[in-house]
């Protein structure tokens, strides 16, 4: 069964690469691309690096993009324009690590791109410390 893929856009190459490994442990059947850092590895994001990552994990089932902070969003949106109107790609407004974990699990069940993005976005509401 085809599964939604993920693209991880971070200002830090280490964060994107590390998160890819963390999510891959949780669900090895989901295809994930890390798009972290500038072209030379510096702190920043790059629309071309992101566009290549989106290309790399392309599937008709769809792709969910997670990003760390605002300027990564600007480049992710620009990347989608550069990549020329890719279908079924959603940028999730989600906490990157926590949303990534939720998304990789959801994608693992073969869920749609909408449901996968939604799972990521719901992570804003899931506290991590049970203070009851």
């Amino acid at each position, binding site marked *: 069964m085809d599964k939604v893929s993920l693209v991880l856009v971070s200002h830090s190459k280490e964060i994107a690469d590390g998160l890819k490994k963390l999510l891959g442990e949780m669900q090895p059947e989901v295809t994930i691309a890390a798009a972290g*850092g500038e072209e030379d590895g510096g*702190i*920043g994001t790059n629309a*071309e690096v992101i566009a290549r990552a989106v290309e790399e994990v392309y599937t008709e089932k769809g792709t969910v993009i997670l990003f760390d902070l*605002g300027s990564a969003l*600007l480049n992710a949106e*620009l990347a989608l324009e*550069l990549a020329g109107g890719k279908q079924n790609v959603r940028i999730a407004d989600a906490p990157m690590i926590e949303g990534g974990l939720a998304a990789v699990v959801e994608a693992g069940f073969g869920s749609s791109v909408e449901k996968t993005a939604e799972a990521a976005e719901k992570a804003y509401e899931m506290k991590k410390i049970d203070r009851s």
Partner: protein
Amino acid sequence: MITTGTAKSWMENFKELILENKDELTTLDQAIGDGDHGINMARGVQEMDKMLQEKTFETPGALLKAAAMVFISKIGGASGPLYGSALMKIAAEAGDKAELTDQDLLACLDAGKKAVQQRGRAETGEKTMYDVWDPVVSTFRGEETIDWEALKTTAQQAVKSTVDMHAKKGRAAYLGARSVGHTDPGAFSSRLFFEALADAAQKEN
């Protein structure tokens, strides 16, 4: 009247002004951002300059499009996609005209302003570069010829207006109310962008 030569001078002036003000841009971004705006912009304009020395262009549009691609591919911060998108739309509006009248140019700048607004989801008063792009373009849009000195003054005043603003977009938004009292770095570099244009256009005429 903007020819391919004027467009080139514009970008070269921009490079000079950015390099002259690199430390100032860094200082501004240290106060309300991550301190790299000077580095980001300097890298962008230097790479652009290298590209301009190597290639030749037939039209202002072609030159500005190539400049856009350099900003997009070489700047890792928000300013990369913002200046990149603005220049891209300016170039698209310029099309393949060999020369742009002041009215054409104002239409181009308007397209650039809209690109900044859309890319950044920016609105007036959010303490971003849009707070320079918007007043500069809006003030002169519709006029037949541009009063370049007035345009520079408008840009300078627009930069000053960002001091009292409470940042709502970009990294400075993390500071909330504590961003008040500081000049927005992207607004400052945008002033240089318009000043570079004014200098090139004034020399041309």
